C-alpha cells in the first residue's frame, strides 16, 4: 500500500524529471535474511503471511511434492520449496527454500510496469505493488527475473509479497519473521543482516559446508530478501533460484533502448513530413485536360467544356 511515511526512490512508469517524495533523511535500508539451513519446512511463515495479509487461497490438490500450495498465486505470496537431491557421496539431501519476492534493488517488475505508480520502491528497499493503480497487463511478470508476481483471476490485479511494508513502516518485523519457530528468518537493517549472514556462513563452513554463502545477487543490485545457502555456489539447486539473476536483456532492450529510438522515430517522421510539405508544397492535380486527345477532332470542342465545368 502507499506509505505516506516513506520516501520513494522509484515509481513505475514515471520519468525522473521531477523529484519523488524525499523529505526524510534517515531511512535505513532493511533486509530479511532467510537461513535455509535452519528451515524445517513447517510452513509457519506461509500461515503468518496469509493471516497478516488476510489471504485465504483456495484449497488445492496434492501434486506429489511437499510444496503446498503448489506454486505462488495472487493469494499465496510465499511458498516453502522442497527439493530433494543426492549429493556426490550418494547421500539424500533435502533443500528447503522460502520462495517469495526478493525486493530487488533494481526491480525488473518496476522497470517493465507501464502504469504510473502501480509499483513503488521505498527508500528502505521495499518494492511494493499498489494494486489499485495496477491495470493487470502482466508486464511485471515478464520483467521479474525470479518469476514472482501473479495476477489474480478474480480482479485482474498483480500481487506479491509486500515485505509487510505496513508493519515495517511502524517499526515491526514482517509477519513471517515474527512467526518462524526456528529463527530461520531474521529482519533488520541490510548492514546488520549481512553481518549476521557472515557469522552464519562461517559457522556452516566450519561444520563442513564449504559451499555455504550469502545470496545477495549483484545482477539486480542486491536484494532486500537474502538467503544463507549451504550451496551458495549452486543456487539453482534450490528450486531453480537463478545463479546470476538480472533483468533480461530483452526487457532492457524494450524499456531502455526501444523507447528513445521510438521517440526519435516519431520526431523524425513528423519533422520530415512537415519539412517536406514546406519544401515542395501540396501535390495538387493539374485539372487541364490531357494533351494526347488533341489530335482527335471532337476534343477540340470538348476541352473548353471540361475546363468550364471545373471552374
Amino acid at each position, binding site marked *: 500500500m502507499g506509505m505516506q511515511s516513506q520516501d520513494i526512490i522509484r515509481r513505475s512508469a514515471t520519468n525522473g524529471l521531477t523529484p519523488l517524495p524525499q523529505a526524510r533523511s534517515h531511512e535505513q535500508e532493511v533486509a530479511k535474511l532467510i537461513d535455509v539451513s535452519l528451515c524445517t519446512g513447517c510452513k509457519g511463515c506461509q500461515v503468518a503471511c496469509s493471516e497478516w495479509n488476510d489471504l485465504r487461497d483456495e484449497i488445492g490438490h496434492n501434486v506429489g511434492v511437499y510444496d503446498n500450495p503448489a506454486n505462488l498465486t495472487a493469494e499465496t505470496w510465499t511458498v516453502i520449496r522442497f527439493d530433494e537431491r543426492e549429493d556426490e557421496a550418494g547421500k539424500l539431501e533435502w533443500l528447503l527454500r522460502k520462495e517469495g519476492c526478493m525486493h530487488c534493488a533494481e526491480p525488473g517488475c518496476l522497470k517493465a510496469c507501464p502504469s504510473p505508480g502501480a509499483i513503488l520502491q521505498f527508500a528502505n528497499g521495499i518494492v511494493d505493488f499498489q494494486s489499485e493503480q495496477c491495470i493487470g497487463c502482466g508486464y511485471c511478470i515478464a520483467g521479474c527475473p525470479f518469476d514472482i508476481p501473479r495476477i489474480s483471476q478474480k480482479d485482474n490485479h498483480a500481487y506479491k509479497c509486500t515485505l509487510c511494508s505496513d508493519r515495517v513502516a511502524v517499526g515491526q518485523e514482517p509477519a513471517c519473521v515474527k512467526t518462524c519457530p526456528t529463527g530461520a528468518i531474521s529482519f533488520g537493517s541490510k548492514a546488520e543482516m549481512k553481518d549476521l549472514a557472515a557469522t552464519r556462513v562461517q559457522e556452516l563452513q566450519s561444520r563442513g559446508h564449504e559451499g555455504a554463502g550469502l545470496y545477495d545477487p549483484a545482477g539486480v543490485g542486491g536484494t532486500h530478501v537474502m538467503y544463507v545457502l549451504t550451496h551458495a555456489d549452486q543456487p539453482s539447486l534450490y528450486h531453480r533460484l537463478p545463479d546470476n539473476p538480472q533483468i533480461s536483456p530483452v526487457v532492457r532492450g524494450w524499456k531502455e533502448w526501444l523507447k528513445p529510438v521510438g521517440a526519435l522515430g516519431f520526431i523524425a517522421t513528423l519533422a520530415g513530413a512537415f519539412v517536406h510539405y514546406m519544401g515542395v508544397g501540396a501535390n495538387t492535380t493539374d485539372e487541364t485536360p490531357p494533351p494526347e486527345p488533341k489530335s482527335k477532332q471532337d476534343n477540340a470542342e*470538348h476541352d473548353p467544356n471540361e475546363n468550364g465545368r471545373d471552374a
Partner: protein
Amino acid sequence: MDNSTLVLRTKLIDRMFHWSMVSCFTLVALSGLSWFFPSLNWLGYVLGPPQLARVLHPFLGIAVFALLMCMFVRFVHHNLFVRTDLTWFKHIVDVLLNKHGQKLQIGKYNAGQKILFWGIMSLISLLFVSGLMIWRAYFAALFPIPVLRLALLAHSVAGLALILLVIGHIYMGIWVRGSIGGMISGYVTRAWARQHHDRWYEEEVAPTKPLPSKRHG
C-alpha cells in the same frame, strides 16, 4: 464538376472497411502508445480508465485484424508488385519533389503504396500473433516467460513501426490533394487518376468510361 469528370476509385464496401479500421486502429494505437511511452499516459484515456483500456485494447486489436483481413482479400490483387513498379522507384526523387510530367506507368496503386500495403499487412499480423501471446486474461499463461518477453518486444517494435508507417500514410493523404476526399466519397477526378495513376487510368478507367464527346447538361 459533373459525373463525366469523376471516376469511382474505391467502392463503398472498401471505404467502410477502411474507415472502420481507422476508427478501431486509432483507439488501439493511442492506448498502446500510452503504455509504451508512460509520459503519454493520458493518451490511454480515449478508452476510459487505464484498467478498462487494458481490457478493450486487445478486443479492438482483433477488430483491426479482422477488418484488415477483409481488406487484404479486397485489395491484394491491386498490390502485387509488377515490372513497371521499377519505373516509379527510379523516379522516386521526382515523385517526392512534386515533378510531374513523365509517365510512370503507375497502376491502381503505386509502388510506395504497395510497400505500405505489405508493411501494414505483415506488421498487423505480427501484432495480432504477439498480442494474443501476451494477452494476460486468456493466453499469456500458456507461454514461458522468456517467450513472453520476446513477444512483448516484438509487439512494441511492430506497433511503433506500424504507427510510423500510418503517419506516413496520413501525410501522403494530406500531401496528395484529392486523396482523402477520394477515400471518403470514393470518387476522384479524371485528371487526378491520370496524373497519379496513369496506367490504371489508361487500362481501366478510360476504356470503360470514355470522355464524353459532347457537352451534356
